[in-house]
Structures are given as structure tokens and as C-alpha cells.
């Protein structure tokens, strides 16, 4: 099979990731943070190593400000519920995934309203202008994707972070599509919380993700103001009925996914060894070739082909629905994703009419795979 669905989850994983998961499950997978025996401590140390790798990658000093989760959606729920206050206002962009859109919409029960600002992929000032236009006196949070999960739109998080700092607004970034391919520095971008998956650009297993809180969230007094989202045991002050006022335990209830996190640590090392920029350069080169392939065929529409720094191509073939195209590609041994990609807002923006075909690349894809893709797609177009 040729796997072009890496925006959903990267596949395959590096051998070191698989080997570490096996090693963990077969030789040291005690419950971290619960006991004093060797296996519990070894698990906790492996998890701490992963926190260290994450903190270094995203430019914070304190590894304990990394909260480990099951995926980006859990991370976003944790971050939003931490910062959200009753009867306030939240801003989101018009390219958000349902992980942001639905979570923000759910906060109406606390009297929290939201507005959607417009992203201009070609003009940062227009995007910033739209944010300012939608701001209210009680705007308390701006949450947005760094990179769209549907096409090549990238948001200017440095400029947005600067704006949020100026107006005293919490800034939460969804790094689902950028962690591992884009350099993100939390301090420089004034990000309060960065939410990421472990299983996409960081090449870890599914069931891993995290929130990185800015180093400024360090004191008990500050953390008391941030509401936990998950409640339960974590081996910390068990006689106390309240969640701890300390990171990461304030936001981590229940046993962590030790094998997954051990694998994620190896995935991050894999990215570090190659560097984010080299990986991104490779996927961009594949993307640009794929754009040329689709555009060379008749009756095709490529969305935002001019955004040439991307790992994710979105297209349609006239008069064939996207699911049919994906099914036919699957018959030719090529995995892509069709439909709305859990992101109805960006499909409205692009006017895709019920979805499109998404092709997304990873470090492991090759140009020879694109030749197979070209022949398969040509067959679909010519035999409609």
C-alpha cells in the first residue's frame, strides 16, 4: 500500500518507535508515579524523558509544564477549560478543526460566546485586521490552528501571539499539523498553551498527545486559577480530595499511556535527528509534484495550489464525489482521505461542495509513489 493519509496519522512509524514500545511492554512497564519499585520509577523516568524532549522542542525550560494526553483533542479540551471563564468571549479562525470548533461551541453553557475571524492565507495584515474587528471587551481567549489539516493554510502565530499579548488575551495554539515540521517557540510566540498530537508529525503511536504550558505558569497561585478538566488519582497527595496545584499533575488524572509515551520519545528523537526543516522540505517537494500531477489532468480543481509550502494537497475531480475518488484510489493501493476532514469551516471557506480529496505526506513517502498516484488518478479521470 501507498500511504498518503499522514495528516490523519503518520504511517509507517520509525522502527525505533516500535522497538521502544515493545521493550517497554515487555521489560519495564510499571505504573509511573504510583510506587517506589524499580519498574514504576523506570516508567516515570521514561515519561520524564519524553517531557524533556517536548519542552526542548517547543522552547520552554521546565519539562513539568508538559501535560501528557491521549491526543490533540484532549489537549485542546484541557487547555480551553483551564483558561475559560464564565461570560467571556473566545475567538477562533475560519479554518478550525472540530477539535477546536466543537469544544468552543460547547462552552455556551457557561455563558461563553465565540466569534470566527477570517484568515487571509496571502496577507497577514488582513488576518490581524479581522481579529481586531472581532475582538470584544470581554475576549479572553484566542485559539487557532497553526496549520490547516485540510490544505496549506498557515496562520501567522508569531504576529497573532504578539497581538494577544498586547490585548491581554490567552493564546492557545493547535499544533496538530505543524508539530514536527515547523519550528514553534512558545516563549517567542507568546503562546499560553500549545496542543499537539504525538502520532502525526512526531511519529509516535496513536493515543499520545500533549499540552505544553508556557513557563510563566509556575506558581501554585497561578495554577489555582486554571481549572482541571480530568479529575482522579495520579499518585500525588492522595489524602487530598482536590487536584494538585502543580504541573503536570493538575491536569493528569489516571494512569498515563506509558508504552505510547515511550514510543513518542523515540519519535521525537527521530525528528530531531533529521530536523523539522529537512522533513518539511521533503514533504513540500512531494506536495509540489503532486500539485503538478493533479493540475496536469483535465477537469480537476486544486485548492490553494499557490500555497507551495505545504504537506497537504486538497483537490476534486469534477463530477465525481470525493469518497468515490478515495475508494478508487484505495482499489489501486493508495490511501487518501475524502470528505470534510472534521473541518467544516474550511470547506465552507473553500466552497468544496461536500468535501474534497486530501493527500498528505510524511518523511517516508517517495517520488516513485507519486508515479503510481499519477497513473491511478489518470485512470479515474479518463474512465469517469
Amino acid at each position, binding site marked *: 500500500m501507498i500511504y498518503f493519509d499522514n495528516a490523519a496519522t503518520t504511517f509507517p512509524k520509525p522502527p525505533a518507535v516500535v522497538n521502544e514500545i515493545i521493550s517497554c511492554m515487555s521489560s519495564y512497564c510499571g505504573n509511573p508515579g504510583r510506587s*517506589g519499585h524499580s519498574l*514504576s520509577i523506570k516508567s*516515570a523516568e521514561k515519561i520524564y524523558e519524553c517531557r524533556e524532549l517536548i519542552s526542548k522542542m517547543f522552547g520552554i525550560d521546565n519539562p*513539568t509544564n508538559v501535560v501528557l494526553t491521549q491526543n490533540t483533542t484532549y489537549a485542546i479540551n484541557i487547555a480551553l477549560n483551564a483558561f475559560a471563564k464564565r461570560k467571556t468571549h473566545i475567538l477562533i479562525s475560519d479554518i478550525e478543526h472540530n477539535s477546536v470548533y466543537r469544544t468552543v461551541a460547547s462552552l455556551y453553557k457557561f455563558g461563553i460566546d465565540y466569534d470566527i475571524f477570517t484568515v487571509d492565507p496571502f496577507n497577514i495584515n488582513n488576518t490581524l485586521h479581522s481579529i481586531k474587528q472581532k475582538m470584544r471587551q470581554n475576549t479572553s481567549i484566542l485559539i487557532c490552528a497553526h496549520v490547516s489539516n485540510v490544505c496549506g493554510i498557515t496562520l501567522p502565530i508569531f504576529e497573532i501571539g504578539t497581538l494577544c499579548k498586547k490585548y491581554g488575551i490567552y493564546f492557545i495554539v493547535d499544533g496538530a499539523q505543524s508539530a514536527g515540521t515547523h519550528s514553534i517557540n512558545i516563549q517567542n510566540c507568546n503562546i499560553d498553551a500549545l496542543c499537539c498530537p504525538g502520532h502525526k508529525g512526531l511519529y509516535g503511536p496513536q493515543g499520545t498527545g500533549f499540552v505544553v504550558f508556557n513557563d510563566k505558569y509556575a506558581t501554585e497561585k497561578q495554577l489555582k486559577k486554571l481549572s482541571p478538566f480530568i479529575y482522579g488519582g495520579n*499518585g500525588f*497527595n492522595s*489524602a487530598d480530595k482536590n487536584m494538585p496545584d*502543580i504541573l*503536570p499533575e493538575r491536569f493528569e488524572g489516571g494512569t498515563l499511556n506509558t508504552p505510547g509515551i515511550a514510543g513518542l520519545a523515540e519519535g521525537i528523537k527521530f525528528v530531531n535527528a533529521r530536523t523539522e526543516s529537512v522533513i518539511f522540505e521533503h514533504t513540500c517537494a512531494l506536495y509540489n509534484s503532486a500539485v503538478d500531477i493533479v493540475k496536469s489532468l483535465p477537469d480537476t480543481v486544486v485548492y490553494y495550489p499557490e500555497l507551495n509550502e505545504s504537506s497537504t494537497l486538497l483537490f476534486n475531480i469534477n463530477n465525481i464525489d470525493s469518497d468515490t475518488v478515495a475508494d478508487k484510489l484505495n482499489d489501486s493501493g493508495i490511501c487518501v482521505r475524502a470528505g470534510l476532514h472534521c473541518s467544516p469551516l474550511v470547506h465552507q471557506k473553500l466552497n468544496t461542495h461536500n468535501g474534497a480529496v486530501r493527500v498528505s505526506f510524511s518523511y517516508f513517502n517517495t517520488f516513485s509513489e507519486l508515479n503510481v498516484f499519477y497513473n491511478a488518478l489518470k485512470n479515474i479521470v479518463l474512465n469517469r
Partner: protein
Amino acid sequence: MKKCIIAISSVNHAIRSEKFLSSNGIKSKIVKLQPNLTKKGCAYGLELNCKDLPAAISFLDNAGIPYSEILR
């Protein structure tokens, strides 16, 4: 050698402290504490030579690394 313990509720902060002290030349070992030894129950501790305790406390205070109690 007399042993002292710095009680640290979080295993993550215990590991962080152990690494930090080690990088500053102070050896310590992570141990799990009995619930009755600390005010709020389950916690970890860093066991170290009592003669290193003042320096260790000073390092942790300066780095802003939280600990709950000192057990001598």
C-alpha cells in the same frame, strides 16, 4: 552516613530535582514515602546524605523547584 529526605509530592518533580542536584554535584536517590510521613499522603522523596541537605535545599529554592517537607 546519616540520610535525610526531601519530600516531593510529584514523581515528575522528584525526577527533575534528582537530575538537577546531580548536575550540581549532589547525589540523591528517588524513594517512595509512606503516606503517614507527609501531611497529604502519597509522595516521593529524595534521599541524600544529610551533610548535603543545606546545599540541596539552596539549589532547589534558587531554581524554584517545589518540595513539601524535610524529613531528618
